[in-house]
């Protein structure tokens, strides 16, 4: 008689095992270390450490630079996600309504999204340069005078917005378009027979059917947006005067310039708490919405 078969659950475990252990080692373990460090006053600039309980967290929350960066990041997230969503949706809708979509159009639009973020920073740094940037020339021709995009705090933030929109709007566009293309025809035909106009159909048929896709798109974009680093680092390095110092940049500086490990760890965890809370409330709310409309 042949040997007893291994329980399927265990077999599956063997396949999943290596990847799981690897992730445990390379991501979970450092995160645990970080958690520990956040309860100490560890710095690489001085030897020895001691427990501080929540003291480090308190000093983080009390730090004005941190608070500024945090607020800046929230504003950044909100503006960027909303603008990209609206533009992406509009463009997706526009292409969805065309009878024959040129496949080239879509494959070209993925390029900004996949472009190396440091190169994205490079391109916009060139275009927004006060002396020879083409955008500066354009705006001066339009009567705005010589705008110092990257050296004026407010303009620098706007530059970051514009760059990020260029970089990520295609993400919204492509995912929303894929979602729209996958919608069933019947509700639309039924609405047409009932005499619904374009705007009515958009608000009462398209959008309700797109609820799930829109929720997923927003949640994923938010997840990526919090980690924005490379492009802004190259464009402004957080300047001028920390006007574009979004949280990832701030964290990097705290960890690697100031070598304040415990502080950086506390910031990391605060950041994680915010991210997780954000994603889960959105997720929970969107699931409720979806089940109500379907």
């Amino acid at each position: 008689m042949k040997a007893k078969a291994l329980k399927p659950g265990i077999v599956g475990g063997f396949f999943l095992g290596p990847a799981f252990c690897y992730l445990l080692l390379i991501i979970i373990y450092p995160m645990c270390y970080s958690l520990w460090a956040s309860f100490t006053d560890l710095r690489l600039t001085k030897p020895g450490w001691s427990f501080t309980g929540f003291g480090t967290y308190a000093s983080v929350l009390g730090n004005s630079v941190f608070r500024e960066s945090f607020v800046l990041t929230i504003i950044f997230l909100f503006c960027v996600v909303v603008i990209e969503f609206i533009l992406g949706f509009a463009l997706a809708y526009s292409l969805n309504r065309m009878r024959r979509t040129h496949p080239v159009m879509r494959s070209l639009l993925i390029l900004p999204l996949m472009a190396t973020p440091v190169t994205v920073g490079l391109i916009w740094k060139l275009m927004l340069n006060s002396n020879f940037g083409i955008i500066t020339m354009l705006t001066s021709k339009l009567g705005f005078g010589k705008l110092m995009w990257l050296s004026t705090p407010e303009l620098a933030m706007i530059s970051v917005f514009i760059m990020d929109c260029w970089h990520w709007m295609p993400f919204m566009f492509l995912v929303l378009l894929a979602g729209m293309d996958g919608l069933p025809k019947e509700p639309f035909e039924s609405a047409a027979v009932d005499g619904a106009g374009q705007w009515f159909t958009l608000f009462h048929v398209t959008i309700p059917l797109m609820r799930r896709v829109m929720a997923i798109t927003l949640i994923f974009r938010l997840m990526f947006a919090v980690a924005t680093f490379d492009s802004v680092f190259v464009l402004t390095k957080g300047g001028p005067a920390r006007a574009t110092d979004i949280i990832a940049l701030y964290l990097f500086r705290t960890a690697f310039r100031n070598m304040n490990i415990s502080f950086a760890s506390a910031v990391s965890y605060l950041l994680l708490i915010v991210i997780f809370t954000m994603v889960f409330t959105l997720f929970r709310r969107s699931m409720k919405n979806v089940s109500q409309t379907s």
Partner: protein
Amino acid sequence: MSRRQVKKLLEQLHIGINWLIVATFMFPLVWMFLGAFKKKTDLLSSDPAWFFAPTLDHWRFIFENWHIGSHLLNSLIISVGGTLFTLALGLPAAYGLSRYPVWQKEALVFDILSLKMIPPVATAVPLFMLSQKVGLYNSLTLLIMLNTAFQLPFVILVMKSFLDEIPYELDESAQLDGYGAFSILFRVIIPLSLPGLICCTIFVFIFTWNEFLFANVMVGGKLRPLPVIVGLALTHRGILWGPALALGVVIILPVLILSASLFRYMVRGLTFGAIKG
């Protein structure tokens, strides 16, 4: 004009506007390409140089002075190595999750998704210290390993969504015929999930090629991959725009070619398989 003619005109207008938007988005890329061939005076002039005499000076410069050739090789090694390693770990994991009643499956999938939410910046410091302790600091191996770790959740989730579409009857039929789990993975599952494999390969390769943070922090000198050099070029006291742009083109060209040509495999991967492309 008749109604039909008006409709047709509007349609053409619609298409035209769409193309205009596409062109606007392509402009920055085109501008950079042009800039890589402009003479220094053209680049820095206060009037946009639409027409210019091209030059290959910057290209020669980056290969000779900045030794881009060896950095290019670094990037290639890290990207290819990272892609292979990630697939080697991720494919079996996706197979296990898709086909077997693993203990606490939903919780695990959820955990994997949560890992993706952690910004790499947050792990940079402990990994920095850990890598020095293990002696892997400043090595290409380290970068391959780190990139693999951060791309793994993506690969597992996307491949799982592709694998879920293969009917389980095929597995059962093979089981009855006497095939074990491994054989089924290689003979049945992998051939049938080729689009998913291509999707994952492209994404992992591109993301690893683009990676900047760890590359910047964990390695130095000769081992630096390309994105780090851009960072260096731009933080110089006097930025050499010409070479910087040429470098940008070198970095971005493989990515653009891959993305544009294999586009149809990529839509699915954008949302980790949550939405069918």
